[in-house]
């Protein structure tokens, strides 16, 4: 599984699914995509293959360009399409993606970990 290729495909999904993604620097979005891709590649081959197929079909169907400089239009298209997706078979992959993105996104939003900040306050 090509991790970089998967990461590139993930970028619009990070924009679409990650809370406050517009506040993140593009390099942070790329980093989140890379980390999620790395996790997916550690999964069994059929799962990462399934995710890649899902991303590919989804990208083709909704016309999302999977490039690191994903434009606002791409993000909106992706967001809209994800929110109105009626493909239950994709539910698992969408859930995996959005959960992994959520778990990983906040490292890039806080300069310091919030609990450490609280402790030092």
């Amino acid at each position: 599984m090509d991790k970089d290729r998967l990461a590139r495909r993930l970028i619009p999904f990070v924009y679409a699914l990650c809370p406050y993604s517009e506040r993140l620097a593009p390099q942070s979005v790329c980093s989140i995509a890379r980390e999620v891709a790395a996790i997916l590649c550690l999964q069994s081959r059929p799962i990462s293959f399934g995710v890649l197929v899902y991303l590919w079909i989804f990208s083709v169907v909704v016309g999302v360009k999977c490039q690191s400089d994903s434009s606002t239009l791409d993000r909106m298209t992706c967001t809209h399409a994800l929110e109105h997706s009626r493909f239950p078979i994709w539910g698992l992959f969408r859930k995996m993606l959005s959960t992994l993105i959520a778990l990983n996104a906040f490292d890039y939003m806080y300069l310091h970990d919030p609990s450490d900040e609280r402790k030092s306050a």
Partner: protein
Amino acid sequence: MIHPMNESPLKVDRPSLTVHCDYLVIGSGAGGSVAARELALAGKDVVVVEEGPYLPLEQFRGPVGSLTRKLYRSGGVTPFFGSPSVAFAEARCVGGGTTINGGLLWRTPAWILEEWGRIHGLTLYSEQVLKPHFVTIERLLGVRSTVHVEGNEDSKLLARAARSLGWKVSAARRALGNCQNTNRCPTGCPTGAKRSVALTYLVEAQEHGARLMPNVRVCSLTHEAGRITGATGLFNGNRVNFIADRYFLAAGPIQTPHLLKRSRVRSSAGNQLRFHINLKFVARFSSPIRADVGTIFTEQVQEFEKQGLYMMASNCLPHYVAATLSHQSRQEVESVLTDFANVGLFVAQVRARAGGRIYSPFDTPIVMQSIPSEDLLRIGFALKRMGELLFKAGAVKIYLPLRGELGVTSSLELQGVLDRMVPQRLELITVHAMSSCPMAASPDRGTVDEYGKVWNHSNLWICDSSTLPDNIGESPQGTIMAVAHEILRQHVSQH
């Protein structure tokens, strides 16, 4: 013995090309650590291998995302395929689940043990047999009832609401020293207050000569004429071999049967996986509750224990709230997070009858599961009861684990959602799986006998959650450890 806090007392060994020992223990969690300690105390030469890393306490202060990647398998999301699918959060680190859980440690209810005898024909495990083991476990881990301290407002609100409804509430019993309320239980307690087995059992095992080898994934067992002759693993991409007289397998509810199947030791292993279904709720309150100040929970609602339902608060951080709301739109998630001080995260844990099956065609297993209609009734019951409880606690909006549903603001709306609930839209997770290699009175009904010995194999035992005969409902750490103690007591007395 209980070690002082702020220590990282384990030392790790690197495996040589071939490692010889009396006993190879595969897995270092709740079950494997008991095997390591008991065997080492009995003077055996023990090697413990663990697939995941060893992280000293100071590293638990790191960012939540990167710790989740290090401490959990598949970044915290191992899929159980089905409709609806279930996301399994499984530990993969030294200490196993005890490193990343809330330290909850309940004694096995008597009625569960009675079921084991009546339904599964197991006669060994009774309250009397397990009691001395629980006494030992509770002493070694410093288990006690949690008391309310500063913070934990989410737990207090829930408990007060339950009491006002006349429902049974119990103080959480946890393996705990002086909890500092860092709210970091799921990514390893940074203060060492939570007494994981990495701070207790494994330390004592090492003091008696056991060797610990993290980052070693055992890929296969070799066997001949009903006897395991060796184990092959990978360490930093290099193949290592282990040759032992006897083997204790404690790699968890998925990996243990996977290893047995891949090695062609027991093809029926993994055919009967059981798991709890966790329904997570995000609740918004009209005033700040600061649910992030505190620990996992201090009290648990047990009114519906016999119907297989437990209700409690959960560790609340933006990461977990966003992950829980992963089925909501990004705008809705942002709106909730903007109001984070008023938000709490709660969980209803359901003792499901759902069955899973583990397939092993690849290096990593595939888990398929199906949720029967009786579980859907239980889930509906749990959604309704938890909704009622949260509204009673003062919630003004509740987000249910149902895709396509926005939050509900009243009991009437809640009922409407339940009336039109589509099972495929449930957002289910689990953190407890078990019974994939169950104990049974005969080889055709399970993988191991009552003493944990794999049927038809002379030197292979299992002592983790996979041996539990059925879903136990409550957090299983206490039961896993007590059963492992009994398996080891029997073993040491005979060998």
